[in-house]
């Protein structure tokens, strides 16, 4: 399972089709993966587990999200004003 994940991340080209977000507007796709990466990171850090499994979500949001959104959200998280639940 972990081997499959590692090879998937290694062979990553761009975000694959996600049937949860089938339409042209991919905003939610970017948002969900951004959230999922940071939630994954937070949860695994709390348990002291290996955070590298979270890399998939990071790859996806890095591919999909406009850079300015990511910058804004990172700043909001630093300020404590990020509206999403992590």
């Amino acid at each position, binding site marked *: 399972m972990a081997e499959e994940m590692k090879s998937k991340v290694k062979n990553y080209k761009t975000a694959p089709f996600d049937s949860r977000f089938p339409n042209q507007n991919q*905003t*939610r796709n970017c*948002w969900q993966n951004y*959230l999922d990466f940071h939630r994954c990171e937070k949860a695994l850090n709390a348990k002291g587990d290996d955070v590298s499994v979270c890399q998939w979500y990071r790859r996806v949001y890095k591919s999909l999200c406009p850079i300015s*959104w990511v910058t804004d*959200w990172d700043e909001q998280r630093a300020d404590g004003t990020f*509206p*999403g*639940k992590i």
Partner: protein
Amino acid sequence: MTHQTHAYHMVNPSPWPLTGALSAFLLTSGLIMWFHFYYTLLLATGLLASAMTMFQWWRDVVREGTYQGHHTPPVQKGLRYGMVLFIISEIFFFAGFFWAFYHSSLAPTPQTGGHWPPTGILPLNPMEVPLLNTAVLLASGVTITWAHHSLMEANRKESAQALLMTIALGAYFTYLQMSEYSETSFTISDGIYGSTFFMATGFHGLHVIIGTTFLATCYIRQQMYHFTSSHHFGFEAAAWYWHFVDVVWLFLYISIYWWGS
């Protein structure tokens, strides 16, 4: 040929459409001066001018109908059409604000945290004062129907009582809503939630005040014996408007207060 041989009302020349147009201009330019330069004189003049226009225009309609007998059945039919069309236009007006609310709340954006209500918004409890407000307006719908039936049965005492109760319930709603407004932890500038909440409920409140005023003028006219048991269109128009206001509240309560929390 010294008298009309048809049943319609050829209205005499009147200055009120002109003063109405002028006051509309004063209102709009007054808003601009207030918003941009904090200057309120133009707006105040516009409000005064439009209030005076409305008072004098509608006073003339009462004079023409009640005192001069111009409101024959076909004329009354035209007035009915007019009121219905006006209320339909108001329905479209509110439809816009409901559209805005549903657009933002059905598919919440990242800015809200991806959910509704947005992060940081503490909505009012729909089971507290808003539910009381619902009961108040529903009751007022009953009392105005009672007033209408009493009027049609030529029962002056009960008609006046029921109308007064309706007005009191309308005023109570306004009082309750004003106190709710002071209790909210959010303002109109608190994101899309604040905007949709206060635009929709705010315009509704304004319509409650207008409706209550309309009902109050009906009360005064009733005391002055303007209405007969079979001819009282002013009262009916006020009743239609009041029911419309009640229905809008029901939609507001279910959409914004209940589902939206």
